[in-house]
């Protein structure tokens, strides 16, 4: 037999190599008895029909060992064949061997600049890849298989339709069947790495196959980018973001989608960090819980979720038995939280000390202590409320829970987890803000289930957002019902209200006292009035009169200028003329007539001695000159005396450690169409302090009275001392600025705050005071029966007893106090005592009031932020002058600074360093140039931004910079403000020159006051100092001391 015989047989094609058969039987046989067996192999020949035409392909057989995970079975290892062929259609118009490839159908265009090969890591961005603008995409078979296994048939179908669609320039290349592109998976390599290797090999082959005419870009994740970055010419690897920025930088839609997807992925990653085993523990049965709580094994408290890091939550336990302070237990992570929501009352079991963790909240950067940590074992009381959510759009597959075919709604409040809603409801309320109620949360589901109970309209407009804000805090703005309104006494033009002459037990002060009220301009409810006069004994009589709400009167109209008598509850003290010591105090019901209704501004002008303001005061309009003068003098004397008395009492409180912490309040100016005109920070003048001091005095004395009479049922107000650890930021910033703040007691704190005054920059002191405010705990109403007497102390005011008495029109607690006072002064105690609330009821009522008050304060704060955002929303941040303002740095974070903008009263952070390592770069004149790669060093005192070229810029604490304010729109949550530092120089606001000076500190004030005092005539000639204040005096002395007097000798 010779080879010539071969000619008789039909032309067969040999496969030249023996297939590399790993681990198969024939392989073993081949090795063992190769000589004997000499297996003959052949390939399938070609013919027409189902077989390939042409030269014929040599099939090469390899094997793959695959582990098949079948359901209800243990995983099987199977061996599968894999045939490779030399020609696989490349589907490109640039094919260099078209007859070999036999491309049919859709081809990749030749005119594009590059071909893109996506990797399995870009599946998250699939919707961007679906855009027709992306041309020249080669989908490798490896990648489509990965898509199928990772994302399911839905994505596969999408891809399939993409590939069929002629308008999309993308093709499939079966790289795994090509003999040059396929590498067998080596032992011990991960599937991921193997895939990457194959993709790279395929791209390389493709590049060569197209005659090296067109570059191939593989779009992969960061690791592959690093590994394969510079391996060969023509094939480049980059991340998806880079790719978009380089080639499709003007495709807005793609960039927006990309950002949004990144955000969602980040959030998913955070959530999945802890959700490795989604099985939550079941709650303990109630009897075990109760037993555990009683025995002390478990503790109970309310759960608070940290707003900045959602993963962290803590339970505040009020330990009334053993220690005096409440303590907190940290619940770190999603699993230990065991489906409890913010505001629930939970039972917690503490971990042993070895498992305690550190807090990682954004505000506690330097805080590295280990705190008690635990996990939730049961919920004793759920926080029953409904939540406002926004629904993601239908196309947003990231929010679509594949397993259960339901949508995940994103709540307005950051602290609540996403809630699963059925698809029908989600689609119906797609673009609205909806209110949902949570139904249940199973142990095996990551999110709770809920359903929609109402809507709030589409988000975005001011009205809607206000409504959602109010709803979030459970504040109802329902008008009072008819029945309620009917209970009020009638006071209309036809039937004017007048004093009931049967009221004999009221002291009539209308004739004897000069009573006036001082309130903000445009105030409608006037509930407090002041009076002061000299008694015949020489002593002074100070009176504070509060509207008697048991006889509620409608606010007065401006038309009616007739003498209006008002019922009031009065507190009248008799003071020593000179020392202002309180000799006697009287409480009682009275009738008053307010002679003057002054505004704060008018009263301040009178106090300053500017008598020309009388032109604006109504009551002075129709008077003759002589009477006007007398009256004016009387009024001015009264106001000045009051101011004097007030400052005396303030000083007294100061000795006990009263704190002067002015909050930054913003008032919003609206025009007729309810558009926001401006945001103006409120100023605190001396007159405000005066009125406040009188009110504080009244409150304090009423507190004493009702406690005396009802030691177990009085409603008082206390302010517990703040926790020391909250002062850390204040101390750090103050130290960096060169001031020392002593927080050991309220007096020490007050003194050190007064001393922390920078003469060149009064804002520093304000800032420090503001930071001190943040550390304060909340003042609480409480019932005296449930607290020990030493806990009655009010830290902020420096008083041993305090209550709220002076604003019954706007606070319910004051009404309770009024009733208590009336009962206390009544002669017949037995009748009234029955109407008072018991200690237990009072305690519950106090809890409720405290909670509502907290909600109202929070709501107010958020509403301020809302208005701020709206103010800046329609202003072009780059061009509008109002978006640029002066800001002061008051703290340093890892990559940002914290700024306070006095003009608008905004506090926020501005970045100094971005995530990819670029820092702010400023030019020589201090103007911002841009972001360049560099590094950031920071300490408590300063932060240095050094660019890679070596230039640096330093920011020191309390430095003034120019800031640009813009709004960062959020789809699911309230908008937030974004601050950027524009320049290192302070911003000189042109309007700043017109706004009135900010009020000086108390010491300054005192100095001013004393220097304003009339120096008696005889001493004037001895006046040596030319200047006015103590400071200049000291300076002069210093200069004198240094002066060379030798010449004068």
């Amino acid at each position, binding site marked *: 037999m010779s080879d010539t015989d071969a000619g008789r*047989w039909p032309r067969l094609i040999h496969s030249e190599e023996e297939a590399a058969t790993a681990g198969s039987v024939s392989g073993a046989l081949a090795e063992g008895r190769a000589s004997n067996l000499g297996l003959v192999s052949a390939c*399938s020949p070609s013919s027409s*029909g189902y077989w390939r035409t042409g030269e014929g392909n040599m099939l090469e057989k390899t094997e793959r060992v695959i582990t098949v995970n079948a359901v209800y079975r243990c995983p099987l290892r199977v061996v599968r*064949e894999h045939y490779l062929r030399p020609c696989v259609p490349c589907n490109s118009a640039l094919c260099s061997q078209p007859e070999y490839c036999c491309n049919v159908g859709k081809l990749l265009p030749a005119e594009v600049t590059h071909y893109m090969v996506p990797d399995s890591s870009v599946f998250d961005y699939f919707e961007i890849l679906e855009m027709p603008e992306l041309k020249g995409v080669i989908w490798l078979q490896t990648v489509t298989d990965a898509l199928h296994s990772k994302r399911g048939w839905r994505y596969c179908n999408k891809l399939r339709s993409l590939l069929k669609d002629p308008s999309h320039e993308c093709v499939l290349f079966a790289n795994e069947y090509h003999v040059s592109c396929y590498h067998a998976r080596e032992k011990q390599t991960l599937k991921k790495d193997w895939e990457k290797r194959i993709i790279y090999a395929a791209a390389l082959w493709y590049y060569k196959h197209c005659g090296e005419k067109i570059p191939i870009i593989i779009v992969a994740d960061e690791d592959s980018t690093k590994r394969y970055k510079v391996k060969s010419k023509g094939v480049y690897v980059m991340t998806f973001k880079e790719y978009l920025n380089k080639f499709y930088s003007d495709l807005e839609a793609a960039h927006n989608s990309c950002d949004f997807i990144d955000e969602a992925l980040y959030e998913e990653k955070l959530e999945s960090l802890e959700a490795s085993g989604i099985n939550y523990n079941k709650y303990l049965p109630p009897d075990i819980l109760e037993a555990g709580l009683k025995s002390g094994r478990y503790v109970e408290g309310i759960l608070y979720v940290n707003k900045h890091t959602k993963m962290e939550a803590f339970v505040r336990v009020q330990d009334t038995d053993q220690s005096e302070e409440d303590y907190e237990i940290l619940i770190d992570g999603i699993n230990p939280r065991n489906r409890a929501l913010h505001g629930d009352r939970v039972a917690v079991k503490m971990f042993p000390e070895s498992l305690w963790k550190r807090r990682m909240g954004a505000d506690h950067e330097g805080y590295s202590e280990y705190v008690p940590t635990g996990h939730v074992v049961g919920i004793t009381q759920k926080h029953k409320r409904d939540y406002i959510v926004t629904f993601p759009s239908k196309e947003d597959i990231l929010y679509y829970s594949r397993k259960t075919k339901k949508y995940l709604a994103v709540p307005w409040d950051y602290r609540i987890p996403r809630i699963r809603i059925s698809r029908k409801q989600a689609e119906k309320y797609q673009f609205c803000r909806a209110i949902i109620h949570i139904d249940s949360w199973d142990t095996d589901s990551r999110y709770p289930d809920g359903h929609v109970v109402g809507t709030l309209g589409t988000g975005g407009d001011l009205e809607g957002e206000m409504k959602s804000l109010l709803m979030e805090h459970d504040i109802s703005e329902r008008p009072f019902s008819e029945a309620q309104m009917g209970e009020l006494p009638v006071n209309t033009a036809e039937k004017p209200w007048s004093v009931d002459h049967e009221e004999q037990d009221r002291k009539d002060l209308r004739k004897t006292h000069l009573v006036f009220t001082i309130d903000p301009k445009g105030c409608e409810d006037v509930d407090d009035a002041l009076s002061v006069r000299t008694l015949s004994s020489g002593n002074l009589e100070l009176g504070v009169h509060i509207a008697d709400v048991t006889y509620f009167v409608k606010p007065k109209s401006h038309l009616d200028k007739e003498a209006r008598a008002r019922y009031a509850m009065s507190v009248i003290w008799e003071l020593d003329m000179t020392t202002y010591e309180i000799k006697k105090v009287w409480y009682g019901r009275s009738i008053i007539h307010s002679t003057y209704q002054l505004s704060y501004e008018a009263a301040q002008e009178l106090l300053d001695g500017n008598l020309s303001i009388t032109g604006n005061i109504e009551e002075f309009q129709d008077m003759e000159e002589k009477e006007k003068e007398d009256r004016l003098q009387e009024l001015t004397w009264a106001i000045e005396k009051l101011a004097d008395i007030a400052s005396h009492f303030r000083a007294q409180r100061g000795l006990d450690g009263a704190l002067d912490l002015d909050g930054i309040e913003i008032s919003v100016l609206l025009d007729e169409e309810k558009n926001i005109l401006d945001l103006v920070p409120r100023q605190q003048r001396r007159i405000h302090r005066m009125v406040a001091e009188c009110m504080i005095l009244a409150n304090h004395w009423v507190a004493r009275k009702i406690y005396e009479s009802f030691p177990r049922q009085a409603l008082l107000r206390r302010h517990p001392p703040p926790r020391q650890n909250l002062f850390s930021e204040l101390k750090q910033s103050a130290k960096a600025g060169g001031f020392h703040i002593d927080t050991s007691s309220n007096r020490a704190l007050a003194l050190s705050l007064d001393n922390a005054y920078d003469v060149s920059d009064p804002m520093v002191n304000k800032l420090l005071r503001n930071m001190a405010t943040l550390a304060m705990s909340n003042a609480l109403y409480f019932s005296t029966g449930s607290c020990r007497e030493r806990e009655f102390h009010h830290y902020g005011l420096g008083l041993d007893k305090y209550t709220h008495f002076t604003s019954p029109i706007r606070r319910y607690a004051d009404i309770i106090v009024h009733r208590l006072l009336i009962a206390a002064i009544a002669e017949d105690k037995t009748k009234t005592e029955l109407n008072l609330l018991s200690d237990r009821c009072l305690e519950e009522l106090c809890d409720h009031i405290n909670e509502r008050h907290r909600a109202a304060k929070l709501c107010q704060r958020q509403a301020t932020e809302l208005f701020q955002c709206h103010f800046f929303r329609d202003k072009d941040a780059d061009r509008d002058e109002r978006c640029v303002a002066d800001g002061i740095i008051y703290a340093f974070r890892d990559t940002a600074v914290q700024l306070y903008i006095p003009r608008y009263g905004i506090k926020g952070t501005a970045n100094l360093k971005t995530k990819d390592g670029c820092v702010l770069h400023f030019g020589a004149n201090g103007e911002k140039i841009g972001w360049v790669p560099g590094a950031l060093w920071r300490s408590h005192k300063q932060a240095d931004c050094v660019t890679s070229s070596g230039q640096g810029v330093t920011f020191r604490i309390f430095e003034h910079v120019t800031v640009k304010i813009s709004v960062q729109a959020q789809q699911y949550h309230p908008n937030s403000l974004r601050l950027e530092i524009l320049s290192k120089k302070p911003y000189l606001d042109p309007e700043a020159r017109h706004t009135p000076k900010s009020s000086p500190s108390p010491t300054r004030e005192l100095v001013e006051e004393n220097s304003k005092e009339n120096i008696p005539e005889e001493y004037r000639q001895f006046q040596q100092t030319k200047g006015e204040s103590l400071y200049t005096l000291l300076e002069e002395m210093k200069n004198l001391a240094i002066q060379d007097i030798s010449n004068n000798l």
Partner: protein
Amino acid sequence: MAGLELLSDQGYRVDGRRAGELRKIQARMGVFAQADGSAYIEQGNTKALAVVYGPHEIRGSRSRALPDRALVNCQYSSATFSTAERKRRPHGDRKSCELGLQLRQTFEAAILTQLHPRSQIDIYVQVLQADGGTYAACVNAATLAVLDAGIPMRDFVCACSAGFVDGTALTDLSHVEEASGSPQLALALLPASGQIALLEMDARLHEDHLEQVLEAAAQAARGVHTLLDRVVRQHVREASILLGD
């Protein structure tokens, strides 16, 4: 396995073959010295070993002997390690019996039994690894073994399986394709005359498609024939070299 596409849009099957392509076939004759004829075939990953004894006296009961022709006795056995899960197969179970019967029918048609009356020809086939198309591999192995034993046959018996997926006929099914539940048939062919020795199908197939599938199977069987022919010639060549031609 669910989710695996048997035929992709581009026309590739699970293992990368086209619709009408055969798997790699390797075969060897004369692997057992002690048997009269033996052969080993690998069709893809399906490996079958066939051993032929005969023609010899009828063993067992003489009553079974046929006066005018030989008795063909086929036995099929599948090793316990032949499937992905090790499974103990008792010798006389239904599947083995059925396959044995089918083999017998096939070879009775092909072997010239008239030449050996009152004798018995035993064909034992064992499947060492079952990856689809076991019947075809058995038939092909048995053919070679019979040829190795020198028993005259009318023609080669070449077998191949074929299936029908997405309007296309696939030939030489692997285990994945067989397990998918699509209609499949096994065809044993005498290639020279085109006569069908055995045609077996155990699924529902619309009669319009039958022609197509049958044609594909026939084509594939002819392909197998070419291969087997080559194997035989190679074997003879080697043997003659050894004998010193």
